[in-house]
């Protein structure tokens, strides 16, 4: 079948103005949107800029807006779209560098600001630190994050206020805060307790809807708000 892709274009070197280009091509229902972008780039316009690597939803390179919502290009099939008119745009709230490529640095800055690493200053045991399957389960959901930014850039709070650390950073703080082996929960919570921490979240839920890893993002944020309000992690 034929599908039409209307793609957002911006080339900093040639035109100062953003615009949309339309491409029409043959597609199978089981083609990924990423496959279509690859084919357009290969056969119609080599200058089209977008990121990709793994092509099956595990590396987090290709978060874009497809028909008005954030998705991974490699995880949406043509048959899932339920339309043959596809609008492709870069994710919102990060500066567009070229076409669908956005500047990810502000996103990673937020990520780095929440101490997204394991802290335990006790001398390690000879073998593993023990952890029961239940304790492991407590933070399983948030270990799945691939830092694709689909959540943060779907959040209206982040759009209007780039200082908000955003759902992705909170998810990654959650992963450690609720890890029974970690010792820096208090510091991370203190960071999230600040003006641009969890209180910028108004449970809008776009983030959870956008997450390609099906992480319960809003729930993770809620658990942190609750931990702060209660002053306890249980």
């Amino acid at each position, binding site marked *: 079948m034929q599908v039409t892709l209307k793609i957002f274009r911006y080339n900093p070197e040639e035109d100062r103005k953003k615009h949309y280009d339309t491409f029409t091509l043959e597609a199978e229902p089981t083609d990924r949107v990423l496959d279509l972008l690859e084919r357009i780039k*290969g*056969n119609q316009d*080599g200058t089209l800029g977008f990121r990709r*690597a793994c092509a099956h939803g*595990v590396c987090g*390179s290709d978060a874009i807006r497809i028909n008005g919502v954030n998705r991974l290009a490699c995880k949406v099939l043509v048959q899932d779209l339920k339309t043959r008119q596809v609008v492709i745009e870069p994710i919102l709230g990060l500066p567009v560098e070229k076409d669908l490529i956005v500047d990810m640095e502000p996103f990673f800055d937020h990520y780095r600001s929440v101490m997204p690493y394991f802290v335990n200053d006790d001398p390690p045991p000879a073998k*593993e630190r*023990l952890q029961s399957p239940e304790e492991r389960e407590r933070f399983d959901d948030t270990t799945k994050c691939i830092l694709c930014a689909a959540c943060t850039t779907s959040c209206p709070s982040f759009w209007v206020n780039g200082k908000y650390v955003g759902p992705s950073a909170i998810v990654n703080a959650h992963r*450690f805060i609720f890890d029974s082996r970690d010792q820096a929960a208090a510091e991370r919570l203190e960071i999230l307790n600040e003006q641009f921490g969890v209180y910028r979240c108004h449970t809008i839920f776009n983030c959870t809807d956008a997450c390609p890893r099906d992480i319960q993002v809003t729930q993770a944020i809620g658990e942190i708000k609750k931990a702060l309000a209660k002053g306890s992690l249980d």
Partner: protein
Amino acid sequence: MQKHQYEVVVVGAGGAGLTAALYASRNASTAVISKLYPTRSHTGAAQGGIGAALGNTEEDHPEWHAFDTVKGSDYLGDQDAIEFMAAEAVDAVYELEHMGLPFSRNPDGTIAQRPFGGHTNNETGKPVRRACYAADRTGHMILQTLYQQSIKNQVKFFDEFYVLDLLIVDGKTAGLVAMELATGEMHIFQAKAVIIATGGHGRVWETTSNAYSYTGDGVALALRKGIPAEDMEFYQFHPTGIYKMGILITEGVRGEGGVLINGEGNRFMETYAPTVKDLASRDVISRAMYLEMKAGRGINGKRFMNLDVTPEVVNHYAEIDGRKNPDGSPYRVTASDILAKLPDIIDFCETYIGVNPVTDPMPVQPTAHYAMGGIPTNKYGEVVVDEKNTVLPGLYAAGEVACVSVHGANRLGTNALLDLVVFGKYSGLKAAEFANSEAYVDLPPDPEAYAMQQLNAIRNSSGKENMITLASEMKSVMAEHVGVFRVEEGMAEAVEKVRELKERFKDVRVDDHGSKYNMNLIEAWELSNLIDIAEVTAVSALARKESRGAHSRDDYPDRDDDNWLKHTLAWMENGGVRLAYKPVTMTKYTPKARSY
């Protein structure tokens, strides 16, 4: 143009690169250069597990692990390195755990382990639980954990910098040349030691589990600088990729009891590997599938098999096999067990083929997966450049790009992730040690000249040839003739074809003439790397007149230890490929017939 100076520069931010950087940065100023954001590296795609004889649920020993690896390698692996890796494995896994890696857990709180192909109890020959896992996202957790620790230790990253050239002056490493993708600007890195950790090159083949980014940049970089590539004919085809797409279905599925079923509804692996059946090593299973399909026993006569992990089928065969839990009770699974242990696999199948593995079988076919060959190194990650294993001072390689060789002719599942952390660590330590005792080598006067010249050749080409066409011709000829089964004429044809493509590449079309994020240009460059690698692979394969591990020939069906128990070394010289051979290092395992 910008200049930078670091004692150690690591190229690649996957499992190998990050481990190397973590260790090197303890003792030397270190920078990591990567064409992708570190967390996009392909290590994140690894699913099933990392091998280490922890013995958490049943008896196991590093010696058994070493023997299984030697046997899996079809005796082509260097045994000193294999013994070293198996022994280091246990500490390496504990070290990852201490860095916070969230492994799945046993009820007693220890790291959970599952069986994997080719890993056996050396006394009974039965599968052993050796693969330490975090659900089916082990690689993801390793990559994330290492990146997190790099942030904690303030490792310096140059993200989205594409390395174009390695600077070697008078046989010594001087640094490298990279392009900043965001601006197109050239950067010169002066370094005392360079560690190459750029991963594999599965994009040479049609159906592959590998990322778009798996274009063999590291090996191509080395080849162009007169460094040989070792054992390139040994490329692993994983038996279970999703039909047509190639997306990997981890061996862990079979570890949890999944079985391969042919078009007649039979579990065909019983015939090919009577003891371990579906948990034989990958070369054996891929070949068996190929033979079954050739005999018309694919599903509906098509070129795929069913991989069935529905609880009924798992329990049925577990009963037949008499498989037991560690506590001695019979092994049985429920739908929720499958869901808990293989969540991502289920997600892939539902997203891409609309199949729920808990209720229906998955259509699978062999998929290009892993490069056993690569840049030759010794067990400290030092690059060795000839038959006598002479070290090139200051150059290191680790991970899939390197050939230590611990995987020989066929890698066992879980050993790649292990390879990353063990040899990543030692190359990092060795590189820092080297940097501490050596001075910087002076850069050549025009360091970026060679890279610029190649780039300009692409930029200014006539533009007659479409990149996609060239790539797909290469992929199909390689899949057809240098795939699971190989014969003389086919491989000769492939060599011919690849050389033709190499010529035609000179006319490749690049639409984008800008400098910011010119991915078009980079992709052309990557394609040239792939073509070089395809050539070296095909030539190395054509020369090896035996069947061993992943290299299996219809015209020479047997292993020939008398003539071919040796590593291939291939140089790119004078527009062609020159081959030489070097012996395999043996310690205590003498080659035996291989059966599972």
